[in-house]
């Protein structure tokens, strides 16, 4: 196939200034400060033989090395931490929700970012979390419960139904369903084609339209994907600023490259450089854009 496979994507990334990394980023976790503190948790995990290292560009993140799974021990079951990739901890930090905000989480399962929103809001304010896929809702509910989240109401519905709440949200997180990247899935290169990415991009544009309509004027929308494909990232943002009442704001992070403003010879709006793109292996592939509603 000339629109899929490792060689196809290698050439594509090379043209964008990236390359395929051979190594994976270290696994990481986020301390859940709703239920514990780093001061309490870190010595406990170290006593079990877990090696931890602070992630300098996150508020509560740690890289870890462990000889056993950290997904089933007491501290995890009691919600003291959430296993979450370093870059995946960044969209919520960029959104920066406050304890007084009314926040919408558009595609919430499995709940990593929803629980992080609640954590950052100190379990105050209001979060409405929407998830459309039935097989993903049990993990969302379990993570909300496990992490002691009490300021969230979750709905098993498409986010298009959020308008029935009659709320104009202060802040919206759209961590969009995407094609993913080669570090998150075994055999990714063989499973994805350019057509899949195009389809995914169309869904993301519908979600962006919906999110923009639910945001109050002056409200903040953070759009993120764990995709390296510009069709799901910069090209969607170019489309958003051309078609929706939003403008871009700078994603203020000490890590990541600026968003691409030249994609396959097409010159994009220079403001797209305000977005952040993360090439592996320092983190997994990721993209974050921050918009304000006009």
């Amino acid at each position, binding site marked *: 196939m000339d629109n899929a496979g490792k060689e196809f994507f290698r050439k594509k990334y090379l043209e964008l200034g990236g390359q395929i990394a051979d190594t994976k980023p270290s696994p990481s976790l986020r301390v859940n400060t709703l239920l514990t503190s780093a001061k309490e948790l870190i010595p*406990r995990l170290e006593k079990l033989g877990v090696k931890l290292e602070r992630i300098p560009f996150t508020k509560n993140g740690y890289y870890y090395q462990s000889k056993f799974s950290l*997904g*089933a021990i*007491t501290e995890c*079951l*009691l*919600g003291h931490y959430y296993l979450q990739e370093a870059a995946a901890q960044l969209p919520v930090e960029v959104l920066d929700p406050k304890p007084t905000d009314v926040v919408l989480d558009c595609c919430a399962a499995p709940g990593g970012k929803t629980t992080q929103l609640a954590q950052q809001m100190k379990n105050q304010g*209001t979060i*409405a*979390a929407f998830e459309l896929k039935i*097989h993903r*809702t*049990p*993990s*969302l*509910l*379990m993570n*909300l*419960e*496990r992490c*002691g989240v*009490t*300021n*969230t*109401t*979750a*709905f*098993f519905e498409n986010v298009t139904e959020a308008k*029935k*709440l*009659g*709320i104009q949200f202060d802040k919206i997180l759209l961590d969009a369903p995407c094609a993913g990247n080669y570090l998150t899935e075994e055999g990714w290169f063989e499973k994805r084609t350019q057509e899949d990415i195009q389809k995914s991009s169309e869904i993301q544009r519908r979600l962006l339209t919906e999110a923009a309509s639910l945001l109050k004027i002056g409200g903040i929308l953070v759009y993120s994907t764990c995709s390296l494909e510009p069709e799901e990232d910069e090209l969607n943002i170019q489309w958003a600023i051309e078609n929706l009442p939003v403008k871009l704001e700078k994603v203020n992070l000490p890590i990541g490259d600026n968003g691409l403003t030249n994609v396959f010879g097409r010159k994009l709006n220079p403001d797209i450089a305000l977005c952040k793109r993360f090439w592996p292996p320092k983190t997994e592939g990721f993209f974050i854009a921050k918009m304000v509603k006009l």
Partner: protein
Amino acid sequence: MNLIEFLKPFGIKQAPEAQIINRSYYIATNKQMLSKNPIYSGECIAHIRGPVLIPSTTFLQQIGKAARRHVTVNAKGEWLFICGRDVFGKAIVEHNNPIVGDRVVILNEHKECLGYGDMTATLDSKRVVIKRLFDIGDLLRRERKTRKVRV
């Protein structure tokens, strides 16, 4: 079974005022959201599972603090218990004199509640002394079961 009946064997007389959403009890305060058929709202208290209730992890910690009878287990006993095993007498490092027939909460050495069970033998017994009824590992087993059903 309602919350009052569920808490009675622990020696707890007062139950929180909670409402049922999607077969679980919640202390939910956001009325605007509640009218739109949510699947989770506010503080999760317990889940209805057939004829019994199982507590949320947060509510379990409250039960752990308020229950009449408790035992503390060592690290090995803790691991076996959260894997779904019963409690052996030799794993117990501290207790407040529960007797056979008591509903007992199981704490780890950090005094976190791991679950509960019923005393079936005296503490000096070499066999199982607490028959497990619920432990926090249930959360993972629930998730795996859901995945299995989906496949």
